[in-house]
Structures are given as structure tokens and as C-alpha cells.
């Protein structure tokens, strides 16, 4: 048997030796995919629980309440008698905001005294806060428009002209590729790829440093006839295959079963997944070569892997971060995978525009290769530092 085949056999033997590997390589990525898709299956959270403080109790105020309740982002679940009661309810976490109609609202509006409507939203919770704000604001604007329209009609302006008069400019917002504003499409896609990167890095480092920990690294190198490259590739190739199959299953779930937008060839995104797995393995090999100590290398990978969820900027844009933090995002394979998905999958651009991202992912194996001699030295004299 050739040295490479024997190294491969060792690699397969290792990942079949403990259930932990199945858990980390298959179960965690797939169960998390189902978790995220299930969690956000509504796409956009509708019917935010909010309340109303109606101090006017007039036909107008009841009309406003009905109008607010008919908005899809709001659910008027609570009616309060006072401002204090409404605030307490927000503090208890029952509602995410409330709309206040002051006393004598109808009378003052008719008399032209410009009464004010107040809206309160709890921005401590970003998504429901933003959505209830949007709902309340729309309600207030519609109320204003309705009152103005009544008056304009009264002074003799024809009905069809009032809309143009009240809202002379309208700006239509079109979201490219995701007109539904579906959160699931972003969060699940980006978080799942970052999770993949995290698990690949952790398993890679764990499996290599196990040899050093239990003192089997000398034998491991000897099986590969002294070639660290052969030993590492032999160990990692079976993992690449398992992770890639898991990655494809994940993509199959998202784009096939759950019909997430994919405006490019399935081959493109499948190729990007393969490159993501290999690039993450290479980055992990680089870490473990720098720090051939299981706990330290795993700590670095965990730190980088967890920060990737924030830094690779799936929610907060890199361009808005401090420069030095933003630059850091470019050493993460998942950043390139995410950009490829946005360009190809979401925006359906020509492959040409993603050429640099593919090239960057292809460069990671070089990074893993440069410090292999250092890893070899550590493997020849294994020292376990707990």
C-alpha cells in the first residue's frame, strides 16, 4: 500500500473512532440549518404585540385604533387607560410599544388646533421596535392625510386631486433580489456558512492536535513516510469529503427544499461550498502550525470563528466598521463565500464580478502550506501542554 493510502486510512479511522466527529461534521451543521430555517420561517416577523392608550374615546380615535390593528406588522393586543400603565407593560416585556391618542383629539383636530399623536417604541429590541415604529408611523401619516383630505374636500378641492396634493412625490423602494425583505434568506444563508467555517476549523485542529496530545504524531508522520504534507492531506481529505457532503445537503435544503433565492447555476454555489470547506481547513492548518497546542489553537479558531459571524458582516456592513476591523474580515474564508452568494445567488450577476472572491478562496491552501515545516517539528517532538 502506498504511503498516501495508508495516511488516508488513518484519517478515516480517526473520524470513525468517536461519535463526536459525526456530531460535529454532520449533525450540528444540518440540525442548525433546520433550526434557523424553522425559527424564521415567517420571513418577516408580523403582528408585533403593541398597545394603545386611547384617552379621547371618540369615533376618530376608535377609527385610528382599527386602522392600526389592520396593519400587518401590528397587533393591538393591549388597551391601556394611562401612559404609566402602558410604560409598565413595555417594561414587563408584554408589548413593544404603544400609540397614544390624547384627550380631546377629535375636537382639536376639527378645530384646527393641531393636536399631537404620540408613538412609543421599544428600540431595545431592534426588529420588533423598528417594525412597530414603521406601523405606527404609517398609521399617523394616514390619519393626518385622512383629516387633511376631509378639509380639502370641504373647501372644494376635487377628491381625485387631494392625493396628489397631499403626497406630491412618491418614492418606490425596490429591493433587488429580495423584494419580500425576507430575513431568513440572509441570516440563514450567512450564518450557516459561518457555522460551516467554524466547525471545519475546530474539527481540523482537534483532529491534528489529538496526535500531539496522545503522542501518536510520530507514528502518524512515519505512516506518511515523513512527509507532513502527505500526512495532513491524508488526514484531512476524508474530512473534506464528509464536510462537503454535509455542505451540499445544507445547500440542497436551503435552495432546493425551502426555495431560497438562487439566481445562479447550482454548480457555482456548490463550487463555492467546496472552496469554503478547503479554505477553512487551510486556515485551521495555518493556526495549528503557528500554535501546535490543542487548546490554544482551538481558542484562536473559536475566537475567529465566532467573531466571523459579526465581522464577516452579515448584519452590520463592513464599510461602516472602523477601518482596521473591516480589513480583518478579509482573512475569513466565509466572507468570500458570502460575497459570492450575494453576487451570484441573490443578485444574479455574471461570474466575472466574483472572480476575485474565487481567487481569494483558492489562495487559502497556500497559507496552510507555508508553515507546515513548523507543524512537522512539533509532531516529531510531541509535547502536550494542557
Amino acid at each position: 500500500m502506498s504511503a498516501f493510502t495508508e495516511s488516508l486510512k488513518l484519517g478515516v479511522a480517526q473520524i470513525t473512532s468517536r461519535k463526536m466527529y459525526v456530531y460535529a461534521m454532520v449533525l450540528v451543521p444540518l440540525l442548525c440549518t433546520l433550526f434557523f430555517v424553522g425559527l424564521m420561517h415567517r420571513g418577516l416577523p408580523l403582528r408585533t404585540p403593541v398597545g394603545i392608550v386611547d384617552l379621547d374615546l371618540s369615533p376618530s380615535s376608535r377609527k385610528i385604533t382599527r386602522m392600526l390593528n389592520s396593519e400587518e406588522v401590528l397587533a393591538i393586543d393591549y388597551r391601556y387607560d394611562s401612559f404609566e400603565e402602558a410604560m409598565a407593560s413595555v417594561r414587563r416585556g408584554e408589548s413593544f410599544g404603544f400609540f397614544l391618542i390624547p384627550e380631546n383629539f377629535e375636537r382639536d383636530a376639527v378645530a384646527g388646533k393641531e393636536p399631537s399623536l404620540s408613538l412609543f417604541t421599544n428600540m431595545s429590541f431592534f426588529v420588533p421596535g423598528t417594525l412597530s415604529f414603521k406601523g405606527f408611523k404609517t398609521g399617523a401619516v394616514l390619519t393626518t392625510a385622512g383629516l387633511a383630505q376631509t378639509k380639502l374636500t370641504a373647501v372644494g378641492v376635487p377628491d381625485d386631486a387631494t392625493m396628489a396634493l397631499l403626497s406630491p412625490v412618491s418614492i418606490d423602494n425596490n429591493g433587488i433580489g429580495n423584494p419580500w425583505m425576507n430575513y431568513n434568506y440572509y441570516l440563514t444563508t450567512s450564518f450557516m456558512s459561518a457555522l460551516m467555517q467554524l466547525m471545519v476549523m475546530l474539527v481540523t485542529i482537534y483532529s491534528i492536535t489529538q496526535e500531539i496530545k496522545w503522542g501518536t504524531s510520530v507514528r502518524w508522520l512515519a505512516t506518511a513516510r515523513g512527509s507532513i504534507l502527505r500526512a495532513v492531506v491524508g488526514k484531512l481529505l476524508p474530512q473534506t469529503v464528509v464536510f462537503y457532503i454535509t455542505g451540499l445537503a445544507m445547500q440542497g435544503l436551503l435552495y432546493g427544499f425551502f426555495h431560497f433565492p438562487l439566481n445562479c447555476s447550482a454548480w457555482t454555489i456548490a463550487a463555492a461550498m467546496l472552496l469554503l470547506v478547503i479554505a477553512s481547513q487551510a486556515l485551521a492548518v495555518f493556526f495549528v502550525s503557528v500554535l501546535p497546542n490543542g487548546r490554544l489553537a482551538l481558542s484562536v479558531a473559536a475566537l475567529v470563528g465566532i467573531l466571523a459571524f459579526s465581522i464577516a458582516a452579515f448584519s452590520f456592513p463592513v464599510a461602516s466598521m472602523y477601518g482596521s476591523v473591516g480589513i480583518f474580515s478579509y482573512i475569513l474564508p466565509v466572507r468570500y463565500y458570502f460575497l459570492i452568494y450575494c453576487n451570484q445567488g441573490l443578485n444574479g450577476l455574471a461570474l466575472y464580478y466574483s472572480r476575485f472572491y474565487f481567487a481569494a478562496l483558492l489562495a487559502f491552501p497556500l497559507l496552510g502550506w507555508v508553515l507546515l515545516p513548523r507543524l512537522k517539528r512539533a509532531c516529531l517532538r510531541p509535547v502536550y501542554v494542557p
Partner: protein
Amino acid sequence: MSPEPLPAMNPLKSIYNWWAGLAKAFRHEMHTITHDAGVLVFFVVLPLAYPIIYTIIYNPEVVENLPVAVVDNSRTAQSRELVRMTDATPELELYDYATDMGEARRWWSEQKVVGVLEIPADYAASIGRDEQAHVTFFCDMSLLLRYRAALSALTSVQLATGSQITQARIDALGADGLISASPVEVDTNFLGDTQQGFASFIMPGIVVLILQQSMVLGICLIAGTRSDRRRRGDYITDRDDYRAPASASVLGKALAYTFFYIPATLFILHYVPVIFRLPHQGDAIQWLLFSLPLLLASAMFGLTLSHMMREREDAFIYIVFTSVVFLFMSGLTWPMFAMPDALHALSRVVPATAGVEGFVHINSNSATLAEQSHNYLWLWFLAAAYFVGAVILQAILNRHARRALSRA
């Protein structure tokens, strides 16, 4: 065969043994924590460093000056005014005028712009004819935060442009004085995160999660290290742990972790918001009292999970990724009311879920403990439930270990 001496007949003696076991477990665990560099990284470095790193990432708080291309088919004073107003918003910035949509699309493809504002040829004419003018904005949807920023900027542009024109038209009608363009004033109040900053919203929740996760990681590291010793056949080093009553040793350990976490808790729940000027409205007594069951429940949760660890390094594989799952379970990013019921129920078994919800309300909305009693009591319940779980698992482990010890 019974490897252990029978329980002491004297009840007073067994009570004494229990308390002695508790004190011993506490002391022993404090020693373990302070003499293991790996545990100290999780227990000290992680809670100190992570909040700072996260705040630095998110501290710019808001999305500003997103580059926008303009395709102006109207080329009039009115359309240029609209572009000037768009450019003047904090969120959007004019990248350049594109000759046509083709050019604008190319800029977008090359990621030079994140949106395109298309002004139709009849824009000024529509305004002149007292009709409604339609403008179209195409927004890149790669990040929702950008879409949100663009949306709010354009809404204000639309309202500002609109009210100018409306007032002019009403004046022209001669109805001036009789009606105004805005018969009702709208007064907007943001509670909690009043500046709507990203860091101010996410940090108060994340710090709670950091407390729980760093503690669970450290506990699992300790348990994995003991398991490593057992794999090597060494039952002697930790013999006191196996011989003490399971309930005393679990409680002693949990108290040690909780005690050790007091400085980190003060730093994370008080100094982090103060240093970074995050929302910090709550009364100190309220959140201090709230943090006690949070720490205890996290410790018990960690002690229960720690029995999954077979090796010292297993904590990394089993625990690290859960931070992301628990973040989403906490309702901070995806609200509870929009979760499927099954996941909502599942999320309650994680202490951080009640912890985040309770602490954010206390910290950012100045809720009192009474107003957050459902979360507070739930944390005590979780602490008790995981205590029982950890004791059962510890008792099983002890039986096995005592047998191994008696054989040795």
C-alpha cells in the same frame, strides 16, 4: 458489591459530612480554576475581552453615506433639488450621475453603489401639473441594515419635498390659513435604545450571553480534564470529588463558579455599558439581584452539560457553536412572538434566554425586578432543575469512579 462504607448511621454526622463536602468542593474548585490557564482564559480573559471586541465592531452604531447612483431623466431644477436633498441625508451620498440605467447597473454590479435613484422624464412636469410624481429607488439587498437606512432616508426626503410642494399648492388654492398640510403633529419617542444604534441595541443582550457561555465553556473544560485523567486510569487525583455526596459537590462547585464570577459580572453588566456609553438605565439593586440566579442557573446548566465531555478539548466542539444558536433563541435578533411554538418552548431551557430578556428590560428600559419576575423566577427554577440534573449525572459518575477507586 458495595465499594463505599455504608452511610453513617448518625444523622448529625451525615449532615456534617454533607457540609464538609460542600466546603471542600468549593475550595477544591477555586483551586482548580486559579491553577488552570485554560479555565482562566474562559473565566477571565473571555468576559473581559469579548465585550470590548464586540463593541469595537459595532461601535460606529449607524450606517452612513451609502453611495447612490442617480439616473436623472428629468434634468430640471426640481429633479436636481431632489438629488441634493438625497445627498444631504446622513444615510445616503451621491456617488455620481449615470447616463442611463445600464451604466448605473454596471456600477452596482461592481459594488461602487448600493442603490440607484431613477427620476422619470416627466418628474418636473408632473409637479407642475399638480399630479403625483413617481421616483423609483433600486436598493441592493445584500444587507438588510442598508435597506433600512436607505428606506428611512428616502422617506424623509419624500416627506420634506412633499410638504414644500403641498404648502405651495395650498397657498395657490387660496385656502391658506384655513388648513395646513399637517393638521396633526406626530411625536415619536424611542424607548430603551434611544439613539437606535446597533451597539446600543445588541450589546446589553450579548453581554449576558457572554457570561453564560464563558462559564459553561470553563466548566466543560474542567470536566473534560477530569475525564482525560480517568481515560488515563487516574482516579486518585480527583478522588475527593468522587467520594463527596453528589449534591454537596455539585452545589459547592456551582457556588465556586458563581463566586469567582462576581468581578466579571460587575465589569460586564456595569462597566461595559458605562465605558461605551451604552444604555444603562436600570437600578443597580435590581440587576444585581437579577444576576444571582442567572449565574447560578448558568453554573448548573454548565455542570449538567459537562458530563458530555470526554476530553479536555471537547468543550470547543460541543459548546462554542451553541453561542450562535442561543443568541437567536434569546429573542434579541429574532423576536419571541415570531418563533414557532416548539422553538419558543425549547429556548426557555437555556438560562440566557430569560437572562437576556430580563436584563435588557431592566438595563435599557429600567424595569424593576417585580416587572421582570417571570424571568427572575424562571431562572431560579432552571437553577433548581439543572441542579437536580447535575446531581443525578454526578451520582452516576461517582458510582463508577468509586468502583474504580476500590479496585485500585
